Every structure is written in structure tokens, then in C-alpha cells.
């Protein structure tokens, strides 16, 4: 009787702790948004006027339509690119796999603002690539508008898909795919009727993530969308207005975004309701050796995808070495941008590293446990936890940051001005990556292995640690990687949370951009990029895994 209670308590404790975290760091700070959205700005009384407006005003209706377009487009593009890349790298022997993975990580970094600017420099109205192409008679439209936004989303978010699905693709039960072939199904068709259904958890999670990231991203539509307004830009405009803002409406738009993403989460859960496709993890697919034309084609495809994704970052690296005079780039190269930043860069570097590592360690531990709950203990409590965890993605970081200041400004929770509050914000904003990635990976690991460990005398907790954790390591790693890279690059919430002592690299970059100093911004971005890549590989090294074991 006694022992039963303990077992019951292990995961119940985790559940309670998870809810406590979500309540403290999410619901409580953000309750102000919901409240604000329900209050009429003029009269200060309860009213649904904002919601009524959202669904009646033409501009908002268009924004809703555009949001869906951007979300679905970005999702589709990212899925196509990410799954293709994952498939190529897990199933074929590709030369330079580590390089491809590195470039994917680089693509994930996508320096704030300056990354989007790089697209304009390349494909804008007077973009270099566009001009070069038109000089050889190839005219392509400038990147502005819906198509550009979707394109950029696809290239920006595919690394998430790549990271999540790679692990799944590599862990499929080989015999099942072989069975399909022996029944006469050609490999490409098998992909759609067997392979993808089997990794549905991973695919649907990455679809969900990229959809939500696409609908929540306001930077890209703002910079290259031009007239392509989406809910996120509308909310951001209303919220960040220097003059005459409308916090009620902004909050209402955020709430709509939140509801939208929750619906998608529930849809994903519904899709997976019957999913019990465990792999035995013994007969994993082998990487095929390919030759000739096919090999060339696969290499070109893989490298094109990652290079395109990493293009903004690469451009930024290039910019960092250009000569500048004030905000203006001059012909020729120099290290002057680095000289300008070198003396002041060490604080932000250490802050960024410390905050990110602290947050990511917490994320990996709690994300793994929460992922387990979500995937193995389906219940109303875990289901709603799952849905709530999507909120941090869609709530603009600045809203989150302000909410944090409001709630954590006074004792006993007076954290403002400390590094801790930045860690907390990063933690809650990046937690879902880990939780979801783990949940998806767990869907492939049958419980019978855990049962086996239990039958050999391990408590469920230990069995989880000794058997399940190593088996879902690719999922944990993918989640940790996404959390870490995005934590290193977290800007919008830190921007309102930082003080002089706690400035981080992305904030430094943003401030340079604001000053119009794109040269120094590029230099800082390059430093951040290098740090990220080094930290990622350092972490792999420390954890005793080879880079190639990433996937």
C-alpha cells in the first residue's frame, strides 16, 4: 500500500511541480493580458468590445486570414525542407554530415533583425542577388510580400523540423519499411504511406511548432511583409506604439493568438490519440551508400537547403568584416567593427552564456519530465498543461517581459534587475521545445523496455533514467539544442528585463541595430553565432557524444 503511494507520487509530484511552474511563470504574469483584453479602454469597464472589433473590422479580418496563410505556409515550407533534409541525412551517406548539422544550427541562430535585413540586401528591390540575376536576364520579384514572408519562415524554421524528425527517422523499425518494399511499394511511395505515418508524433510536433512560430513571428512580416499584416504585427504595433497605444486591443489580439495556438495543440493531440507505434529501436535503418547522379543530387539538395537557411547568418558574418563609416558600409574589408565592440563585449558574452546555460539545464530536466507526462500519462491535467505550454511562443516576448516586471517587481518576488528574472523568462519561453521534442521521441519508445527494467528491480523513476532517457537521447538533445540556441538569442523579453549589469548579446545587437550601426551589429552577431556554435559543440563534447551522434 505504502509503496504504491510512492509510485503514484513520483509522477504526481512532477505534475504538481509542472503546474506550479506554469502557474507562477505563465498564468499569473499573463493574467494581466486577459484582464486587459476584457476592459474597454475608454470606460475602464468590462466589455467584449475588442473581440467584437477583431471579428468585424476589415483590417483584423485580413490579419486573421494572413495569419493563417503565414502560419500554414511557413509550416508547409519548413516541413518540406526540414523533413527532406532529415531524410537525406539519416538515410543516405552524405559527405560532411557534421557540416550540415552545423549549418542547420547556424540557420537556427538567425540573428535578430539583422538576419531579415540580410534577406533584403540579397533579394530586396535593389538586392544584390536580384540585380545579378536580372543582369543575366532572370527577373524575380523582390522578396517583399506574402511569398517572401512564407519563404523566410520556411528557411528560418526548418531546422526545428530537421532536429525533431531526424531522431525519429533514425529510430524507425527497419523491418516495417522493408516489409512495405517487399510488398511491392517503391521507396518514395513507402515514405508517404509507411514512414511518415510512423513518425507522425515527430512530424506533427514540428508542424505544430513551426505553425505557432510562424503565427507569432512579427519581425519578419514587419520587415519584409510590407502590407502583409498579421495578428502578431497588429498586436505588436498596438502594444509598442510610442504614442496612443491600445493595450486592450493588443492584449485581445494576443489572446486570439493564444487561443489559435491552443486549438492547434489540441488538434495535434487528437491526431496522436491512437498513436502507439513503438519501434523496437534495435533494427534501425542503415544509411545507404549512394553513387553517381543520385548521390550528386542528394548532396546538392541537402547543401542547398542548409546554405539557404544559413544565408542570413553568413551574410551577417560577411558584413561584420566590411568597412564602415558611421552607419554606412564602404567598399573594402576591415576589422573596425570588431575593434569597436571588443572592449565592451565580455560582459554580455558571459551574461548570455550564464543565463542560457542556467536556463537550458533547468529546461532539459523539467522539459524531459514534462514531456514524459504529456506523452505517457494522458489526462486532462497533462493535456491542458501541454496546451498551456504553447502560450510562451505566441505571446510576444516584450509582453512577457513587461508581465514579468509587473509581477516580480516587489518583495517577496523582487527579481527585477537581476539575472534571475532573465533566466526565468528564457526558461519559460523555451521550455516547450524540450518538452515537445521529448514527448515526440517518447512516442517511439515502447513501454515494454521500461517494464523490463522494472522487472529487473528498478523503480519506475530509475528505469526511466536508465533506460528511457538514453533511448530518447536524440529527442532530448534536439530539444536542448533548440532551447539553447534560441535562449542564446532571446531578445524581446530580455530587452525589457535587462539592466546594465545583465545585458546580453542579443540586446547589445538590438541596440546597435537601433543605432543604425549595422557594422557593429554584424560583428556582435558573428560573435554570438560563433559562441553558439562553439557552445553547442562544447556541450556535445562534454556529454561524451560525437557530433554525429546528434541525430
Amino acid at each position, binding site marked *: *500500500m505504502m*509503496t*504504491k503511494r*510512492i*509510485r503514484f507520487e513520483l509522477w504526481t509530484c512532477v505534475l504538481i511541480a509542472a503546474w506550479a511552474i506554469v502557474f507562477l511563470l505563465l498564468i499569473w504574469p499573463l493574467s494581466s493580458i486577459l484582464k486587459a483584453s476584457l476592459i474597454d479602454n475608454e470606460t475602464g469597464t468590462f466589455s467584449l468590445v475588442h473581440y467584437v472589433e477583431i471579428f468585424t473590422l476589415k483590417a483584423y479580418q485580413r490579419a486573421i486570414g494572413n495569419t493563417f496563410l503565414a502560419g500554414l505556409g511557413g509550416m508547409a515550407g519548413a516541413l518540406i525542407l526540414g523533413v527532406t533534409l532529415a531524410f537525406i541525412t539519416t538515410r543516405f551517406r552524405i559527405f560532411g554530415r557534421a557540416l550540415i548539422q552545423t549549418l542547420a544550427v547556424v540557420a537556427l541562430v538567425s540573428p535578430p533583425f539583422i538576419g531579415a535585413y540580410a534577406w533584403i540586401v540579397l533579394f530586396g528591390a535593389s538586392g544584390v542577388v536580384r540585380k545579378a540575376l536580372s543582369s543575366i536576364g532572370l527577373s524575380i520579384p523582390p522578396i517583399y510580400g506574402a511569398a517572401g514572408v512564407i519563404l523566410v519562415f520556411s528557411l528560418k524554421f526548418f531546422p526545428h523540423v530537421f532536429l525533431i524528425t531526424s531522431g525519429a527517422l533514425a529510430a524507425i523499425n527497419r523491418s516495417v519499411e522493408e516489409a512495405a518494399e517487399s510488398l511491392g511499394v517503391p521507396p518514395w511511395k513507402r515514405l508517404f504511406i509507411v514512414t511518415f505515418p510512423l513518425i507522425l508524433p515527430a512530424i506533427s510536433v514540428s508542424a505544430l511548432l513551426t505553425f505557432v512560430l510562424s503565427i507569432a513571428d512579427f519581425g519578419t512580416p514587419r520587415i519584409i511583409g510590407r502590407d502583409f499584416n498579421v495578428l502578431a504585427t497588429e498586436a505588436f504595433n498596438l502594444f509598442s506604439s510610442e504614442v496612443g497605444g491600445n493595450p486592450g486591443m493588443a492584449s485581445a489580439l494576443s489572446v486570439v493568438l493564444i487561443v489559435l495556438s491552443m486549438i492547434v495543440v489540441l488538434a495535434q493531440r487528437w491526431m496522436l490519440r491512437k498513436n502507439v507505434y513503438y519501434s*523496437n*529501436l*534495435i*533494427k*534501425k535503418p542503415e544509411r545507404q551508400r549512394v553513387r553517381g547522379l543520385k548521390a550528386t543530387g542528394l548532396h546538392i539538395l541537402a547543401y542547398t537547403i542548409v546554405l539557404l537557411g544559413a544565408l542570413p547568418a553568413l551574410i551577417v558574418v560577411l558584413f561584420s568584416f566590411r568597412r564602415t563609416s558611421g552607419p554606412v558600409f564602404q567598399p573594402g574589408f576591415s576589422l573596425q567593427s570588431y575593434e569597436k565592440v571588443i572592449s565592451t563585449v565580455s560582459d554580455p558574452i558571459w551574461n548570455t552564456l550564464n543565463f542560457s546555460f542556467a536556463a537550458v539545464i533547468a529546461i532539459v530536466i523539467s522539459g524531459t519530465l514534462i514531456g514524459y507526462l504529456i506523452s505517457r500519462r494522458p489526462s486532462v491535467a497533462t493535456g491542458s498543461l501541454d496546451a498551456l505550454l504553447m502560450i510562451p511562443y505566441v505571446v510576444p516576448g516584450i509582453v512577457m517581459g513587461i508581465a514579468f516586471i509587473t509581477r516580480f517587481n516587489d518583495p517577496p518576488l523582487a527579481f527585477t534587475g537581476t539575472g534571475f528574472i532573465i533566466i526565468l523568462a528564457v526558461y519559460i519561453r523555451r521550455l516547450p521545445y524540450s518538452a515537445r521534442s521529448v514527448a515526440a521521441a517518447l512516442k517511439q519508445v515502447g513501454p*515494454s*523496455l521500461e*517494464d*523490463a*527494467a*522494472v*522487472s*529487473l*528491480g*528498478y*523503480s*519506475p523513476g*530509475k*528505469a526511466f533514467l*536508465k*533506460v528511457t532517457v*538514453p*533511448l530518447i537521447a536524440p529527442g532530448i538533445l534536439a530539444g536542448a539544442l533548440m532551447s539553447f540556441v534560441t535562449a542564446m538569442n532571446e531578445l524581446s523579453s530580455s530587452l525589457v528585463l535587462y539592466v546594465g549589469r545583465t545585458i546580453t548579446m542579443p540586446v547589445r545587437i538590438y541596440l546597435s541595430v537601433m543605432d543604425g550601426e549595422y557594422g557593429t551589429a554584424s560583428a556582435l552577431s558573428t560573435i554570438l553565432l560563433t559562441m553558439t556554435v562553439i557552445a553547442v559543440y562544447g556541450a556535445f563534447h562534454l556529454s561524451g557524444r560525437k557530433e554525429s551522434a546528434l541525430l
Partner: protein
Amino acid sequence: MAELRIQGLAKSYRDVRVLESIDLTIASGEFFTLLGPSGCGKTTLLRTIAGFQHQDRGEIVVKGERIDLKPAHKRDIGMVFQDYAVFPHLTVAENVAFGLKARSLPKSEIETRVAESLKMVRLDGYQSRLPAEMSGGQQQRIGLARAMAIRPTLLLMDEPLSNLDAKLRIELREDIRDIQRRLGITTIYVTHDQEEALAVSDRICVMDKGRVEQIGTPFEIYRHPVRRFAAGFVGTMNFISGTLKAGQLLIGSRSVHFPGADGTGPVELAIRPENVILSGSSPGAAIPLRGEVRKVTFLGREAHYTLGTEAGEIIAQAMDPSADFIAMEGQTIDIVLPIAKAALFDANGDLVSAGRP
């Protein structure tokens, strides 16, 4: 060491009733085998005993103490899984050492036991291989070694030898039996191999559709089945329809007195192929029949003859057949069914009377 008592155990998956009120008592140190058709609930029963799923009703008592309230890892039950469930990320040796580490045995003891267990399953030399580099049967043996190594109070084995060749299966089952006996581990064994069940078990439980049909020693199960299902399931059995009329059994055109059967109604006469005498005469009371040899199946040390008779198809067995055995096909021969070796079952499948009491 451990006596196991199961009372009124029932389990359903949603609306499918998989186990219906199972009652069993297994003596301490006994080697107890579950035998039954595919899908009858053997795995479900084992998993419930091991604690991986919870029964809907009933209780499981070990050494007088209810264990079904304990979590699985506290039950000290070793299990060999039907799907092996070897840990793919651990080498063969690590797989076997896994359970020993949980028991925090000294390192040297762990090493000895791992070596011993691997030797037992004929996998020495494979210590540092990963399961992915092993054949199906080899993987199965890892699972077996792993469960045996921990020497639990109760050992559950779900078709532990199904993917091994006959030779190895016989060797391993002897080894399992020896160790089990030496250490006195109460064992529940699931097998679909009847010969194996008969050879190693102290007692056998024949199951069907989630119900216990008969429990008994191998000899009882084979020679004195009390249910038609058990009679038909274990070994080959001829069932010949007949009618009982006040102690007289009518089969085809023949009528014979059947001792101990004084009821009336449709019955089935059960007789094993090895008891069908392939000649016209028999020492005691018997039913003579003529049959045409329709098919001859060679099975090594013996052959089976499928005969068409007026009472239906009857299989007879001939020992050590010679090269010309196939020549029998198409011929008509005389056989007799000795009453002393036959049994009668009624329409419910219950035993009416065994030919010799």
C-alpha cells in the same frame, strides 16, 4: 521459496474480456506451464502477475501476502518477454548485468553471474556486441539470460525459446530446469511447444479464451484430459463422432460397449494416433474399421497416415517408417481402435468416460 495463489483474476481491454476469473495455486519451487492457443491470454496473465498492468478483479498472493498492490519493481519477479525487450543501447553483457546492478551486488559477483548466464544461453564471446548486431534467436537469449541472472523469487517466462532451434531449445530448457530446481525458483512458463511443456513442467495449465481448462501433471494432461479442449489441444487426437445409447457406443456401422458410459446422446470418441493399431486385431475390446490411406506425412522417427474411414478421417501413427512408406498412399488397410486407450466426451466438451478408469 514462494507459493503463488491467484484468485478470481479477471482483466478486460476496454470491452474485450481477456481473462475470466482465473484461479491457480502454484506451489513453491514448482515449474508451472501455461499452455493455450494464440491469443488466449497467457501474456496478459503474466503481465498482470508481474504488475505491468492491473487486474479488474481478483487477487494475487505470494507467500500469503497480496502482491498486486505492490509496484512491479518491488515484487521481485523476473520476466522474459515475448518480444525480448532487450535494451538496445546496452551491450549484451550490460543487458545481463542490468538487473544485478539494481541489486547492488559486488562487482566481482556481477561479473561471475553475467559470465555464467551468458554461458548458459551459449552467448559467451558476444559480451560486447550490441543487440542490433545479433540474430533474432540471439536476442531472445539475451532476454533469457538477463532474467535468469537476477535469480528472482518468481520467474515468468513468455515463450522464452520460441526463436531457437530444436537442439538449442532442448539444451536450454534442461538448463533452465536445472537452475530453477537448484535455486528453487517458482516458475511460470509460457510455451506453445507442447513437447517442451510436457518435458519440463511439474504441472501444466491448459487455457482457452481466458479460462482455465485443465490443470494437471504432464501425464494427466496428455493421458487423462478431462475436457475435450485439452484433449484436442495437447498432442494429436482423433475425434470420432458417435452416439451413446445406454452404454452402447455407435460409431458408423459398428456398435460396442463402452465401460462407464451409460448416458445417451451424441458423443465424441477421442483416441491418439499412436494408439490406433495398424492391423486387424487388438488385445482388448476395440472398434475395427477399414480405411483408405489418403496421405502419408513423414516426421522423422515416425510417419502419420491419414485414413479415410466410414467414421470420418482418422490419423494413425507408424513408428520408424521405412523408405517405402509413401507406397502406402491409396491402399486400403484394416485398423482397430482399442477402447482401453480411448475416451468419450459429451457435447459440452466434458469427459463422459475414459476407456480405462
